[in-house]
């Protein structure tokens, strides 16, 4: 595509003061030197006010005086500097998560400041209580603590109060309910003590609790935000945009969010189509492997349906965008996705399950303590104080950190293993897995086709064919290109949708379809085997060589599948491709159970059957047809080459050409799940010791503070231990 067509106006956001702004994902930034090169290189362009590269997220923000620089010039300039840059779709919502992360970090800072300063005052009161503090001085310290604690709880506690209120309104109990009750009661009791000149105030416990819990919460949100940002970069690099044809005949590149049903887009040969629609003009072949798992190409002509994610390998097409209408594949997928999402929201995370057990237990213990002390003849005031002390000491500090601390460490380990998590709770679900279900095309096999091994073709013929292939953009030609590293033939000409030819020493070499190479029909039929695509190569009137090109397995697929089986996991293949193609792959990988020719509904149905028989399924798939299965499975993963919808439905994305990240993710999750259980068990044990002490009325603020920080530190250290445990896997 020519540079003049790169109209980027739809990606640009206007800023006040006559400035324009563009966010770009930059490919090829590896060192800090690149950062200086890009910023300096763009800074020299007159009109550009600011260019700043975020080295952590590999994103570039450029501001310029509107009208003085064309956005395309920025991309050209970056290209000249040696970097490819891709604009972000401004329709994608991503500021909200960054904002939440910043808000939580602010709350962490505020509660940290409050906890430290109140602790300073509290230590004085505790040591004073043990010696000879004057009641007036103690009251002063309590009042100062109250002045710090009230606004802190009001500000930093909002996260928990809101979530608890929402849960109660929906008739559920989550972890935030006992947290909110504990914090509010601790604060109220302390205020009461302060007003009445009492000895014991729990201001430090309330703020410290918030501080520890907010750290866990922030880590969780920040982890998700970073994962999402990675996925967005990948989406931008894939160029999820379309070339729109305007009514006046002009063309412009627009983000997908700017397209509506009825718009017309141009899909060039070799482009991946990004919308669903009907072909208005043109004729071509489509690679639908990302959509249906089918490896054979499909022909489309005027009036035919095309789906987002398919690759146009023939000629240019004009496509009219359609909304998901009834009866189409996308409609079926969307319906199934909705159903799966609804089923998914009823699934309880480990921490929520713990909260469900924990909240009623703690609250009934506190109530019984109150009744018991009343019956024993203590005044209501003393009984209430003791009951609140029970709530404070059992406050789920360790419990609330138990899972997020492990999740953060485990997600860091997963990131290093090439796995990006969409959802932190995927870690604990991965640990339950008993069955691994793979899609075939693009998951067990590489996303792009390659030369099929074991063909009886002389080496120099393949070399020349590969050299000729370097002049073509056809996917089958691209599969041959890596076999020849040098320059392409001079004067090679590509005939779109047919093949490529070049003349050397009066011999014309042709690479392309059978008709393009002049191969007689009987020979074509003789060679066809159904499993592979065939591209023909012929020199002059010499013999025509059929070159088989097909899906090849990921380089480590055999070892990974074997390792999965060694872990005692059942391995199954569910594919939308033909039986012959699926059984060949299953045989090579020694997988006994496989199903071919499945529709998305059948895939989900088989997964449901497995679920009913008590299996926990990890679904690994990449196609549009896998998206509902990915959402319906217990836990799911997608390769980075997957269609957008599938990546969004999967719990995790794995990078690279290898399959081993799937195995590593399972291993890491196993250790992480063990650490979570240890942490939860420790929290339970802690309560076994703490509750009797509290019920008996022996808890002082000092004891509460020591117990709370010790238990929190213990679970955090146990989570960090994971890094060392994971070295051994």
């Amino acid at each position: 595509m020519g540079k003049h067509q790169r109209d980027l106006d739809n990606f640009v956001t206007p800023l006040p003061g006559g400035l324009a702004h563009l966010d770009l994902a930059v490919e090829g930034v590896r060192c800090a030197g690149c950062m200086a090169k890009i910023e300096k290189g763009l800074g020299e362009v007159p009109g550009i006010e600011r260019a700043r590269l975020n080295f952590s997220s590999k994103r570039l923000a450029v501001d310029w005086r509107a009208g003085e620089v064309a956005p395309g010039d920025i991309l050209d300039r970056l290209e000249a500097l040696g970097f490819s840059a891709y604009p972000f779709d401004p329709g994608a919502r991503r500021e909200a998560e960054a904002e939440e992360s910043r808000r939580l970090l602010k709350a962490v800072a505020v509660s940290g400041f409050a906890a430290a300063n109140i602790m300073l005052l509290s230590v004085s009161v505790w040591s004073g209580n043990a010696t000879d503090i004057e009641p007036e001085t103690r009251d002063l310290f309590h009042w100062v603590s109250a002045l710090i604690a009230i606004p802190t709880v009001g500000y930093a506690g909002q996260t928990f109060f809101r979530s608890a209120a929402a849960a109660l309104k929906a008739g559920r109990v989550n972890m935030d309910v006992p947290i909110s009750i504990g914090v509010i009661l601790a604060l109220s009791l302390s205020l009461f003590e302060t007003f009445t000149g009492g000895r014991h105030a729990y201001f430090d416990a309330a703020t410290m609790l918030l501080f520890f819990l907010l750290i866990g919460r922030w880590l969780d949100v920040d982890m998700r935000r970073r994962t999402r940002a990675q996925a967005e970069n990948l989406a931008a690099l894939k160029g999820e945009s379309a070339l729109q044809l305007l009514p006046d005949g002009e063309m412009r590149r627009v983000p997908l969010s700017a397209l509506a049903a009825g718009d017309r887009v141009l899909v060039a040969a070799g482009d991946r189509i990004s919308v669903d629609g009907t072909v208005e003009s043109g004729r071509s072949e489509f690679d639908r492997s990302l959509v249906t798992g089918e490896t054979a190409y499909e022909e489309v002509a005027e009036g035919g349906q095309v789906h987002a994610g398919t690759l146009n390998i023939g000629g240019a097409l004009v496509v009219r965008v359609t909304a998901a209408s009834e009866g189409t594949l996308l409609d079926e997928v969307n319906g199934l996705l909705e159903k799966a999402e609804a089923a998914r929201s009823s699934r309880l995370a480990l921490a929520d399950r713990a909260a469900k057990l924990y909240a009623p237990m703690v609250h009934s213990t506190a109530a019984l303590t109150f009744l018991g002390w009343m019956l024993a003849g203590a005044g209501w005031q003393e009984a209430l104080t003791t009951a609140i002390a029970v709530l404070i000491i059992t406050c789920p500090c360790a419990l609330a950190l138990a899972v997020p601390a492990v999740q953060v460490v485990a997600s860091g380990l997963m990131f290093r293993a090439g796995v990006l998590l969409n959802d932190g709770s995927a870690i604990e679900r991965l640990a339950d897995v008993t069955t691994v279900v793979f899609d075939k095309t693009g998951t067990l096999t590489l996303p792009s086709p390659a030369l099929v091994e074991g063909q009886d073709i002389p080496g120099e013929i393949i070399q020349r064919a590969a050299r000729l292939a370097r002049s073509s953009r056809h996917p089958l030609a691209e599969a041959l290109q890596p076999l020849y590293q040098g320059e392409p033939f001079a004067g090679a000409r590509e005939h779109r949708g047919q093949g490529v030819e070049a003349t050397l020493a009066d011999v014309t070499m042709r690479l392309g379809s059978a008709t393009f190479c002049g191969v007689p029909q009987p020979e074509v039929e003789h060679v066809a085997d159904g499993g592979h695509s065939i591209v023909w190569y012929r020199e002059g009137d010499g013999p025509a060589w059929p070159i088989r090109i097909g899906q090849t397995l990921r380089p480590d697929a055999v070892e990974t599948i074997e390792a999965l089986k060694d872990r005692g996991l059942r391995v199954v293949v569910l594919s939308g491709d033909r039986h012959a193609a699926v059984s060949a792959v299953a045989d090579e990988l020694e997988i006994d159970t496989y199903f071919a020719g499945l529709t998305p509904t059948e895939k989900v149905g088989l997964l449901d059957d497995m679920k009913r028989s008590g299996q926990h399924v990890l679904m690994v798939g990449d196609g549009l047809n896998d998206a509902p299965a990915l959402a319906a499975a217990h836990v799911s993963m997608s390769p980075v080459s997957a269609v957008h919808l599938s990546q969004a439905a999967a719990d995790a994305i794995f990078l690279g050409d290898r399959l081993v990240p799937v195995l590593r993710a399972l291993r890491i999750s196993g250790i992480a799940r063990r650490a979570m259980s240890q942490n939860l068990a420790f929290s339970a044990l802690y309560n076994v010791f703490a509750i009797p002490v509290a019920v008996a009325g022996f808890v002082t603020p000092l004891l509460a503070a020591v117990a709370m920080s010790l238990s929190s530190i213990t679970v955090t250290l146990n989570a960090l231990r994971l890094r060392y445990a994971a070295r051994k896997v």
Partner: protein
Amino acid sequence: MEALFFLIPVALGLGLAGLAAFLWSLKSRQFDDLDGAAWRAIMDDDVAPPHRRHGG
């Protein structure tokens, strides 16, 4: 004891100053790119190259 009336506000004031500094750095987006910031500190392209060498 009178020292308390003076020391507590000083202690709180220092703490608040620290908190304010952190919130300011957060607001001015200094935490957005931790990896890049580490490198920017050692990039010295803002210093003009020396024009002449000092005699030793």
